[in-house]
C-alpha cells in the first residue's frame, strides 16, 4: 500500500483517541508515582504522550504477567470434568498508543519465539493479530537509549502500524500498514499531508534524534566466536559477582519471554496459568530429582547474556536479542550493564 501521511492537530488528538474506543481497547503510557507504565487506558484516561520512558516495557499487552490459558472442573460429578478447555480471553481489537519504536521491534523478536513453523502459541499470536501498534518517535532519546547499535532506533518503523512524530503543536503520522489505516480512520484522523515533504521532515527528526544517542553496544565480532569459547571464558565470575539474581532485568526487558506454567485451584475449579519466569531464579532449571544444571549464580548470569547476545544471534541470524531500550541498565539494583558485558564478550580472544 502506498505510504500515507496524516497531520493531526494536537487540539483534535484527545477527541480522536476517544472516538477510537468504539472499536479498540486502548493501551498506552500512564504515569503514576513510581514512574510510567504501559497499561490499559481507562475510559477517561488519555495516553501520556510526553513520557520519557516506562519502567516496564509494552510486552504485557501481548504477554500479561499472569495469564489464564486453560480451565477445567475437578468435580467428578460435572460433565467434562478434568477435560481442559481454552480459557476465555478478550481478543477484541486493541491498540497500543505511543509505543516506543524499540518496543515495537522487540515484539517482532518475541514473535520469532511464539510463532514458529512447528508450533503457534495461540495466546500470544491471537493477541498480536488483534493489536495495532501506534508508535511515537523519540525526539530526544535519553541517556540509556542505545537502540541504534542494536538494529533499532528512535524513528525505526519495524513492527509499527503507524509512526507518530511529535511536532510541537501537531503529530505527523506515517501510516505503515492497513491496520494503521483502519486505526486512523476509527479516530477520524483524515487530514492528509504531502508524502514527499512529510518524509523529509521525518528524516530530519530521525537524524537529529539519532545524533543525540551517545550510548552504544559493541557486538560486531560476536558471530565469529564459538559458543563454547564464550561460555568457557574466564570473565563470568567477575561479571556475576554483584548480581543478586532477582528478576528485574528479565521482567523489564521487552525481549525476555521465559515463562512458567502452574495450575491453581479454587475448590473444584482449576485454572492453568502462564506466569513470567526468569532464568535468574535459582530454581529455574532445577530437576525434580534435585539436580540443577545452573545451580550456581555465575552459570545463571552467564546464561542470560549468552542467550541475549549469542544463542539468539546464532539460532536466528537476525542480530542480538536486545533492542537497546536501556531499561535493564537503569533498573538493575547492582548496575550490571549489558553494554559492558557485550564489550567484554565482543573483545574476548581465547588464549591458546
Amino acid at each position: 500500500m502506498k505510504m500515507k501521511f496524516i497531520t493531526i492537530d494536537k487540539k483534535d488528538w484527545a477527541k480522536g483517541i476517544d472516538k477510537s474506543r468504539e472499536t479498540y481497547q486502548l493501551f498506552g503510557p500512564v504515569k503514576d508515582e513510581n514512574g510510567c507504565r504501559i497499561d490499559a487506558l481507562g475510559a477517561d484516561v488519555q495516553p501520556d504522550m510526553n513520557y520519557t520512558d516506562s519502567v516496564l516495557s509494552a510486552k504485557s499487552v501481548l504477554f500479561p504477567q499472569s495469564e489464564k490459558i486453560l480451565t477445567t472442573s475437578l468435580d467428578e460429578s460435572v460433565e467434562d470434568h478434568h477435560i481442559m478447555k481454552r480459557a476465555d480471553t478478550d481478543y477484541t481489537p486493541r491498540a497500543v498508543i505511543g509505543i516506543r519504536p524499540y518496543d515495537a521491534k522487540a515484539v517482532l523478536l518475541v514473535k520469532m519465539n511464539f510463532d514458529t513453523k512447528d508450533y503457534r502459541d495461540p495466546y500470544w499470536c491471537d493477541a498480536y493479530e488483534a493489536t495495532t501498534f501506534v508508535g511515537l518517535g523519540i525526539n530526544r532519546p535519553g541517556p540509556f537509549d542505545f537502540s541504534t547499535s542494536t538494529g533499532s532506533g528512535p524513528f525505526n518503523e519495524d513492527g509499527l502500524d503507524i509512526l507518530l512524530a511529535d511536532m510541537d503543536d501537531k503529530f505527523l503520522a506515517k501510516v505503515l500498514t492497513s491496520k494503521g489505516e483502519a486505526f486512523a480512520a476509527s479516530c477520524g484522523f483524515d487530514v492528509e499531508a504531502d508524502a514527499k515533504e512529510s518524509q523529509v521532515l521525518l528524516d530530519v527528526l530521525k537524524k537529529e534524534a539519532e545524533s543525540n544517542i551517545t550510548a552504544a553496544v559493541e557486538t560486531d565480532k560476536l558471530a565469529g566466536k564459538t559458543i563454547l569459547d564464550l561460555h568457557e571464558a574466564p570473565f563470568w565470575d567477575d561479571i556475576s559477582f554483584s548480581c543478586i539474581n532477582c528478576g528485574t532485568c528479565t521482567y523489564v526487558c521487552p525481549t525476555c519471554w521465559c515463562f512458567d506454567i502452574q495450575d491453581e485451584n479454587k475448590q473444584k475449579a482449576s485454572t492453568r496459568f502462564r506466569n513470567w519466569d526468569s532464568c535468574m531464579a535459582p530454581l529455574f532449571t532445577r530437576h525434580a530429582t534435585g539436580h540443577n544444571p545452573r545451580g550456581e549464580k555465575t552459570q545463571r548470569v552467564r546464561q542470560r547474556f549468552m542467550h541475549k547476545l549469542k544463542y539468539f544471534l546464532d539460532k536466528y541470524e537476525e542480530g542480538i536479542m536486545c533492542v537497546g531500550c536501556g531499561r535493564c541498565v537503569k533498573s538493575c539494583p547492582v548496575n550490571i550493564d549489558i553494554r559492558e558485558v557485550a564489550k567484554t564478550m565482543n573483545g574476548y580472544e581465547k588464549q591458546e
Partner: protein
Amino acid sequence: MDTCIEKIRAIARDLLEKGTVEKVLGFADGTIPMATSPIAITSKEDVDKLTFTSTCGLNLANYASKEKGKIAVIAKGCDSRNLVTHIVENQVQRDNLYIIGVPCTGMVDKVKVASAIEGEISGFEEDGDTLKVTSSLQTLTVDKNDVLKDNCRYCTHRNPVLYDELASDLVEEQELDNPFPDVDAIEALDPEAKWQHFQDLTQNCIRCYACRNACPLCYCPTCFVDESGPQWVGKGQNKTDVDTFHFLRAFHCAGRCTDCGACVEACPMGINVRDFTRKLNKDALDMFGWEAGLDITKRPPLDAYSPEDPNDFIK
C-alpha cells in the same frame, strides 16, 4: 565522605599485600550516574577500583555471608549490624571477617533526586554535603540532607558497631525524639485505610524478588515462596499471593531488620518495602527493648526466651 576513599584503598591494599584476606568486598563506580556496583577485589593492583560515595546504598553484608574463606568488607553502620546478626545466626565466622568500618552521614535517595530535576539525569557529583545534578535540561545544586533515603533520616546507628579498622573518624549520632513517625502515621489510620495503604503498596509489585535478594537477612536456601512440596504461595499475580510474599517476608525479618534500606533501593518499581518491616522494628524496641545487630553476644528476641518477656497475648 570522600577522604575515606583513600583510606579504604590503603587498607585494602595492605590487607591484600599481606595476604590477611583473600578478597575485599566494596563498591565500584557504576556505568550510569548515581550508580555504584558491589565488587570483589582480589589483587592489590585493583584497589583503585574501590570507591565510597553517598550512592552506596546497598548492603554488602548480603555478599559477605556467601563467601567462604577470609574476606574484608566495607561496612556502614547498618551493614555492620547485619554482620553482627550474621555472626549471631551462624552464617559467617567472626574470624573470617575483617570489617572496614565506614561511619556514614547518610545515603542519597535516587528517586528523590530524580524527581527534583527535569529530564533524565546525565551527571552527578558530590562535594561534601553539596550535590551537583545535571540533566539535558537543567543543572541543579542540592543539599544532601534534603534528599536522604528515609531510613538514613531516622538512623541512630551511623557508626559501625563492630569493626576491625575504621576508614574515617566516627560521626555524631542523631538524637531523635521519635524515630518512628512513619509507623505512627500508619498506626493512626482506621483499619480500612490501613489495609488500603498496604494494598496500594503492593499494587505495582512484579515479584522480581529484588527486595528479598538484596536483603542480607534473606539467606534461606529455598525461600518459602519457592517451596513446591507443598506449595505455600502461588507464583502468579494474584493479589493475595503478592501480599502474602511481602507480609510473610516481613515477619521473617522481625527483630532482625536493621533498616538498611537495601530493599527499597533494589526495588525497580519504587515500592517502599520498609513499610512492612518498620512496625515490627518498633515493636521489637517497645516490647523487648531490642535493636538488631548491636551485640555479638545476644540472640534476637524471637530466638530466645526470658521469663520477663511480655506475655499479655496469653489471655
